[in-house]
């Protein structure tokens, strides 16, 4: 406890010194923003937030500092405040991709997928050459339940990079939603050919096989996912379901007791 107090006192003294010596507000703002980013990178979000606030005190026109403040608030699960910070950043610079990304993530964390999707669509206008933006837009549409709309965005991501495994995986999810498990399996095999340790693809393979009533195959697929991540509760739960469907009740309950 005493150590923490000492550390805080030293930090405060340093801040006061800098406050006096830095002079120009913009430079001071920049300095505190950088210092805050360092603390953020070591997951010290509360103190990082203090420094971003200090940065904005000196220079409230620094869009980056607003984004960083939003990121720290988001990390602290204060989603409403983070939304306000990102909006501030956007009001200063509506071409700032990091602000739209943060906005989309914060809405998504609040399960407000309509607004998360709208923010993701804005990203496409800011930088349409970025495959990750198309993927994000696709995922947000999937979260809204708009799987066919998501396909278009994912195709755009794949036009930029045909081996973009995350986009191929998400396309497989859309295909499953459209009840096309054969096509989903083809896509998932494609993902696994690119990355044999893509656990989500094995898990989704299990789901696609279950849709076809191939329960033993599904169990094997979930086992492959669990070889990669033995404690993955989603795959464990899915395996329990597949065992139950396969009539292997005892093994299913064995697993249920360990979930």
């Amino acid at each position, binding site marked *: 406890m005493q150590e923490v107090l000492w550390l805080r006192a030293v930090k405060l003294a340093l801040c006061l010194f800098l406050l006096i010596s830095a002079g120009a507000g913009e430079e001071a703002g920049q300095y505190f923003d950088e210092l805050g980013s360092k603390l953020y990178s070591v997951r010290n979000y509360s103190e990082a937030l203090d420094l971003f606030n200090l940065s904005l005190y000196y220079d409230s026109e620094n869009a980056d500092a607003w984004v960083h403040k939003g990121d720290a608030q988001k990390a602290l699960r204060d989603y409403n405040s983070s939304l306000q910070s990102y909006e501030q950043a956007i009001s200063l610079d509506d071409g700032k991709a990091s602000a739209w990304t943060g906005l989309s993530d914060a809405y998504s964390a609040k399960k407000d997928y309509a607004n998360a999707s709208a923010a993701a669509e804005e990203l496409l206008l800011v930088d349409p050459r970025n495959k990750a933006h198309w993927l994000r837009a696709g995922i947000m549409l999937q979260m809204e*339940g708009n*799987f066919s709309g998501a396909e278009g965005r994912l195709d755009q991501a794949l036009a930029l990079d045909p081996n973009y495994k995350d986009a191929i995986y998400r396309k497989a999810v859309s295909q499953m*939603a459209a009840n096309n498990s054969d096509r989903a399996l083809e896509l998932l095999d494609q993902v696994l050919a690119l990355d044999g340790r893509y656990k989500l693809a094995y898990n989704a393979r299990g789901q696609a096989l279950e849709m076809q009533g191939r329960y033993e195959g599904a169990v094997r697929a979930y086992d492959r996912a669990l070889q990669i991540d033995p404690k993955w509760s989603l795959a464990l739960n899915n395996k329990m379901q597949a065992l139950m469907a396969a009539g292997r009740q*005892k093994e299913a*309950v064995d697993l249920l007791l360990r979930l």
Partner: protein
Amino acid sequence: MATVCSAEETSYFDWKGLKEYAAKNYSDSLSYFDMAIAQDPGYLDAWVHKGDSLRALKDYNGSIENYLQALQRKNDSASALSGLMEAYAAIGDYDNAFLAAARLTGIDPARKDYWLKEGNMLQMLGRYAEASARYDSALEIDRKYKDAIYRQGLSFLALGNSSGALSLFEMVIALDPAHKLAHNAKGLALQAQGRYEEADDAYREAQRIDGGWNQPRINQMHVLMGLGRPDEAMKIAAGM
């Protein structure tokens, strides 16, 4: 006089340790229990309490050693056996956990929770029929013992008796409508009978009780696939 004072000191150290334990200062509590044991190695409670602190600190092997020390001094110490069972279970040694639980029921067969524990350890060993008999014993003592009814339901489910399981899960829910585990297990029993719409309702109820619990959400995803509603199923999957 000196002996009386020494005994007082021993129980004082143990009491101090328990206060630290209650405040979740497990490491600090250990030093008090050690002092009590150093003063009087025959002081059974200090060995048990030290075992409990080590277990809280996830030093399961250390805790087992201390419970065994307590049992050397009193081989029918229920608190030592109970701790021993929990420690063995925590390291996945269900054979020894079961043996400890069986000794507990031997010591005090009137305790319904001991029968429940023994049954639970048998379930972890996959011995569902034997577990079922233990739950029967617990229910003979208290026929409204919902934990035993729930676990009995799981045994029935594992043994392929989904209708028997379903009746038991419904009984638990009648006793405690907020029993989320029973709603989830009811969904599984209904699913096993192909009654997907009703299973969907059961999983929704479990989620209503605990919105942060993923298990019924995942189960619901499977039931929606079974109902031929893959778009709704994948909406759940997309958010996982």
